[in-house]
């Protein structure tokens, strides 16, 4: 008899044998799972779903050169979370899962996602606030080597009357990935030398520092431009003239004109009341009339307690659609009429009025000399007074293809984007709508929004009562089967 068959050794050996078997099985299963997590097959059988990525996004993700990290700061779904927040989190989570999968190359993900609940994980939220300079809840932060882009709920879901109606997260996420992965930065120039509002100024009334910070957060660079020193630089995506106090020199106007004419430039003019800027004649050439009058607003809904004007009437246009859909008003200190009154001398120029004051307002021509504002028929302009006009030309290439030409947007609300009013949702939304549309950034990628389907059953109280009984039928059938089985076994 072998010593191994001796009962003193056999029992411990048998136990050792089982332990080794168990360890080997554990190693095998761990190995299989580790391999499976890296090398797997995935198929979307419902390709028409709201989370299925478009071929454009897939192509961009395949070409990603540098890894992109995504941080989602939408809080976990609690009982207190509203349905909009639940919908947002669910949509963002599922959509980013598709992005993560599509960015996979050779077992390595080029896009990583981190979920941080700022309420449950305040330490990590504080770290992120330091790292990304973002303290916003409900944000999706895309970051690459040295760039970042914050995407907010308004860019992910389309709202109508504050109710989500369409998913547009794919457009926003793919654009954000393209922006963070891109090596060039669009430059937004702010003219200087005429007492304009400045992106370096932090004062509430004349400062644009909030605008500058938001532009940097969107990977756009704000810079000052002195037109008396030279032409508009070649890297200008947009030029903004922010409420100048003084007048532009004729050569400066010529430089602006050549930027628009020869380079299909993009120009935003914010004109305050009571200023002679030297740009009025230049605007007339584009069919835009900027009369030096002051809009007197008398409708109670259109003036706030601090005396600021509230603009609520917007036309349909790519720039103001966000305000129309959300019924978001604009706030500004004073308003000046900007109208599309005269025929544009530039051939092919299309003019559109974008916003207007209330019907109870008027444009006051003699406001400087009046102690009490009065409407003078024949001199003053009756309301509603147009406050912003967009002029655009279409350029035609040699092959006959229509290309976007120059765009000029003149707004008669000089301080609409000042630090004081940039806290208002409408003002913020308008600014970013202007910068993205005027600089063609929203055309980086065009993915159609997908309608949010709403599911509801039209069941009456009687039908629900009948259903309560009908749904118990399977349980009843099983109970009957059990009873029959028990009876058969007994007899």
């Amino acid at each position, binding site marked *: 008899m072998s010593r191994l068959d001796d009962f003193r050794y056999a029992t411990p050996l048998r*136990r050792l044998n*089982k332990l080794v*078997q*168990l360890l080997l*099985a*554990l190693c095998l*299963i761990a190995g*299989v*799972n580790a391999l*499976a*997590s890296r090398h*797997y*097959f*995935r*198929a*979307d*059988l*419902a390709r028409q*779903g709201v*989370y299925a990525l478009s071929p454009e996004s897939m192509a961009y993700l395949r070409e990603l050169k540098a890894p992109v990290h995504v941080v989602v700061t939408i809080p*976990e779904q609690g009982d207190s979370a509203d*349905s909009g927040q639940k*919908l947002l989190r*669910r949509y963002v989570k*599922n959509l980013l*899962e598709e992005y993560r999968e599509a960015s996979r190359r050779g077992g390595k993900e080029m896009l990583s996602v*981190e979920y941080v*609940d700022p309420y*449950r*994980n305040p*330490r*990590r939220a504080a770290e992120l606030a330091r790292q990304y300079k973002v303290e916003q809840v409900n944000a999706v932060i895309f970051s690459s080597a040295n760039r970042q882009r914050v995407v907010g709920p308004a860019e992910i879901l389309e709202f109508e009357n504050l109710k*989500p109606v369409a998913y547009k997260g794919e457009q926003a996420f793919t654009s954000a990935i393209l922006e963070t992965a891109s090596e060039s930065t669009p430059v937004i120039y702010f003219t200087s030398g005429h007492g304009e509002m400045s992106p370096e100024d932090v004062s509430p009334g004349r400062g644009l520092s909030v605008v500058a910070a938001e532009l940097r957060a969107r990977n756009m660079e704000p810079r000052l431009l002195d037109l008396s020193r030279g032409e508009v630089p070649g890297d200008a995506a947009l030029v903004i003239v922010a409420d100048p106090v003084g007048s532009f020199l004729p050569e400066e106007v010529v430089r602006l004109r050549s930027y628009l004419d020869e380079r299909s430039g993009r120009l935003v003019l914010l004109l305050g009341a009571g200023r002679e800027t030297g740009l009025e004649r230049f605007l007339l050439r584009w069919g835009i009339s900027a009369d030096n009058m002051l809009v007197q607003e008398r409708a109670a809904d259109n003036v706030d307690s601090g005396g600021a004007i509230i603009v609520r009437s917007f036309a349909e246009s790519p720039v103001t659609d966000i305000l129309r859909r959300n019924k978001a008003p604009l706030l500004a200190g004073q308003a000046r009429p900007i109208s599309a009154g005269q025929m544009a001398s530039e051939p092919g120029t299309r003019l559109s009025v974008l916003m207007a004051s209330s019907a109870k307002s008027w444009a006051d021509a003699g406001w400087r000399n009046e102690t009490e504002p009065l409407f003078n028929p024949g001199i003053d302009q009756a309301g509603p007074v147009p406050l912003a006009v967009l002029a655009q030309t279409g350029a035609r290439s040699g092959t006959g293809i229509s290309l976007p030409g120059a765009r000029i947007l003149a707004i008669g609300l000089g301080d609409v984007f000042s630090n004081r009013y940039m806290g208002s949702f409408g003002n913020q939304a308008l600014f970013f709508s202007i910068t993205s549309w005027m600089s063609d950034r929203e055309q980086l990628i065009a993915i159609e929004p997908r309608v*949010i*389907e*709403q*599911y*509801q*059953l*039209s*069941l*009456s109280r009687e*039908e*629900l009562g*009948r*259903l*309560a009984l*009908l*749904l*118990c*039928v*399977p*349980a009843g059938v*099983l*109970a009957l*089967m*059990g009873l029959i*089985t*028990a009876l058969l*076994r007994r007899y």
Partner: protein
Amino acid sequence: MRHFPALLRHELRSLAHAPSTYVAGVLFLLLMAAIYYLLLSQYAAEQFSVPPGEMFFQAFWLPVLFMVPLLTMRSLAEERRMHTLETLLSAPVTTTEVILSKFVASWVLYCLLWLGVMIFPVITVYGTSGADARLLMHMPVLLGGYAFVCISGLLYIAAGILSSTLTRSQLVAGILCFGVLFILLLGPRLIGTQELGPWSEWLKEPLHYFDSSAHRDSFTRGVLDTRPFLYYLSNSSLVLMIAALVVESKS
């Protein structure tokens, strides 16, 4: 595995004759009917942005926590208490065959009971005039959800069988199974929501891999992925192997 078909037939017959099977089945179907009814009431009262089927499967863990222990706690604990396991193992059958037959029988019953739940949308559509068939009979959601329940059931039933091998008491086996299922179903999600400091980055991927709610979401969206398949298949094999080792060491 020559004796496996005969053992499986025996197990299925035993389950079909046991009153406890019908009691567990009826309770399960009543619970699911109540959940489905509450869901329909909500959908009748207000609008939702997810189909009702998808919402229904979000509550799958609740019946699993109660039904799987009821289905499996009896399997080996009762055999050991009645000393019939020793008799069974003295026959020319292997421990693996015994464990597998009990496992497959319980799993088949589990899938059949869930199949009973799949009738609810049909009952609702044909039993009322206001229910939209397109809404309730959304096939990718229903088929994906049922496939997930069946595949994840492999691991949950295996966990129940293992619990049943560890004790002679059905009650203890049931409580043990409940605890294991609680960890499997809700553990990854609960851990993931905690502040884990330096561990969070390291644990992110494994927690996502083990998270049953993430698997459920992708199945109900019509996404087929080999990872959950392998996770549930391989881990149920491991759990069953441990169960076989436990039975061998105790017999």
